[in-house]
């Protein structure tokens, strides 16, 4: 495992969609087309913490490090809100909290880096500009005495602390399993003033790829089905164009679909081309919203075809009938085992296979 979580925030059309994808999400999240490169982002308009929470597994134990990176955009100085990043141990308490205050012009406020029980120790006061997207990367080592934190903003290291207690909870719940991305402060009336996140990723130092820190600025492109792939065996909800049944934006839209009850049936779709030329392609995540139409659980695999090899995820199980749920699988290398390229991404097919 290296890359653990990735959400380009482009597949959400409303707060319901956001709540379906994230482990914990309160109402009030909105989706805006204000992200970097005019892509979608998730904007928060509540003052509670844990607005967006992603769980990861296996949980991190003492001495383990977990990385996260994201684009964030602050509202104006008079909004009084802050961005929060919180780490949660197995008891739900924060192992560490980082906030940047909307009252502070151009620099992170003093209360950022308020690692529990420790004074703020900025290496460099980072530049922060309102209404501007900035790339933040955080390395967090979980430990009750040898914890550590490093923070980079737009490629500049602004925090480098060691010897910390990064497990706030005194109850000995010594595992870490979730990160929250949140906002706090007055509720802005204008969507443009809300604290926003985009292209959120979580990774660790295991595996052979995407295991270093910092990564440098990353961009997540969302590619949706645009035509039938090599194999089409599912039955479309209507018509004959299977790819058109699953290409919509918005997870809560289940009005069109493809389905099959036959073990071994496969549906593959080609996808949009990248709209830009990337420097490097680091990973491809295939996501599908899948359900079983009865109370009998079914199993399936997500698939990716790089033109040479068809890769498959492990067996995934649908939840109980009638409940849609996102399932994801990440290919850090293409199924053939080589690094992804713009060419292989643009030529790939994604799909699904019925297992049981």
């Amino acid at each position, binding site marked *: 495992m290296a*890359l653990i979580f*990735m959400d*380009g925030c*482009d*597949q959400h059309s409303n707060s319901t969609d956001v709540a379906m994808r994230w482990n914990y999400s309160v109402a009030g999240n909105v989706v805006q087309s204000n992200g970097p490169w005019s892509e979608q982002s998730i904007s928060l308009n509540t003052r509670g913490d844990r607005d967006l929470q992603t769980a990861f597994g296996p949980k991190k134990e003492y001495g383990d490090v977990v990385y996260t990176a994201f684009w964030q955009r602050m509202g104006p100085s008079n909004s009084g809100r802050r961005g929060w990043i919180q780490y949660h141990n197995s008891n739900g308490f924060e192992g560490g909290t980082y906030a940047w205050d909307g009252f502070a012009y151009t620099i992170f406020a003093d209360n950022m880096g308020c690692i529990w029980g420790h004074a703020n120790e900025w290496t460099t006061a980072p530049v922060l500009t309102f209404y501007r997207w900035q*790339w933040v990367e955080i390395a967090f080592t979980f430990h009750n005495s040898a914890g550590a934190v490093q923070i980079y903003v*737009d490629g500049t290291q602004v925090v480098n602390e060691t010897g910390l207690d990064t497990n706030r909870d005194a109850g000995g719940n010594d595992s870490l399993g979730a990160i929250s991305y949140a906002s706090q402060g007055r509720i802005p009336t204008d969507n443009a003033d809300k604290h926003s996140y985009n292209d959120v990723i979580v990774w660790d130092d295991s595996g052979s790829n*995407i295991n270093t820190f910092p990564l*440098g*600025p*990353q*961009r*997540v*492109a*969302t*590619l*949706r*089905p645009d035509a039938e792939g090599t194999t089409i065996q*599912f039955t479309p909800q209507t018509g004959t164009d299977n790819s058109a*049944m*699953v*290409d919509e934006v918005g*997870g809560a*839209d289940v009005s*069109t*679909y*493809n*389905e099959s*009850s036959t073990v071994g049936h496969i*549906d593959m*779709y080609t996808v949009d081309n*990248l709209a830009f030329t*990337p*420097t*490097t*392609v*680091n*990973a*491809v*995540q*295939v*996501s*599908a*919203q*899948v*359900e*079983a*139409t*009865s*109370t*009998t659980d*079914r199993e399936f695999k997500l698939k*990716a075809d790089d033109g040479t090899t068809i890769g498959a995820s492990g067996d995934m199980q*649908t939840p109980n*009938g009638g409940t849609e749920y996102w399932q994801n699988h990440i290919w850090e290398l293409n199924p053939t085992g080589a690094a992804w390229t713009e060419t292989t*991404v643009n030529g*790939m097919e*994604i*799909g*699904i296979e019925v297992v049981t």
Partner: protein
Amino acid sequence: MTLKQPYVTPQGRPIVEGGYPQAGGEAPFFDAQYGASSADNVPATSPTNTWSFTGTTAYKHLWADNGSPGVATLTLNSSDTNSWLRVLNYGFSLPGTATLVGIEVDVKWNSIGTNVSANIHVSYGASAATLSATDNGGAISASADSVVTYGGEADLWGETAGNLATALGTTDFGVSIRPSTTEVGDQTCQVDFATVRIYYTITAAGNVRVDQQYAEVLTETDSDVRVTQHYVELLRSEAVTVDGLRYQRVIVVT
């Protein structure tokens, strides 16, 4: 005999055929401890899953001879109301999503004498002592032994599907048979075998439905090029004369 695997009839109704009771592969057996009058066909090792005779005092005799006119012969007196030939332990196993809808019993037998009828129940519970509410018995042919079917694919013998489904896999589930005693005096039937077939429906497995699917591509991107100031430097030469000497000087305009 090996139990048949579940299969689906052309009508789409799954059935399981239990065949003979599980008794080490051969059937029928009877257990000598219940008073076999002949040991000719009692297996060397008495099987645990066998015919059993519940009578204590009223049965006349029970024997086996491997063929016509039957393996087990039951002769009951009109005064006997407690004696049964019980064929047990069919070893059924219903799929987890199945609902039992019917039980069918085939008995190959004949009677000695005319006007002999039979009582037939499915039975379960401790020592198979619980008889189904419905007695599906009837007249038994007095001619050569033949297979007669009792119950059917929609017949639960007066019991609830849940009770029977729970009992199916136990060693005490089976069929209780005896010649009826409506006639005065002894009544005799000869039994070759009793097979049980269960009918069940399975909740159809749902489709795997894909509502949406997409790929996200993680790419490296170059940082923005940020311009905070913009100015021009112009380097030019200008000739000046100082004290009769001519110099070149540099002026920088920003």
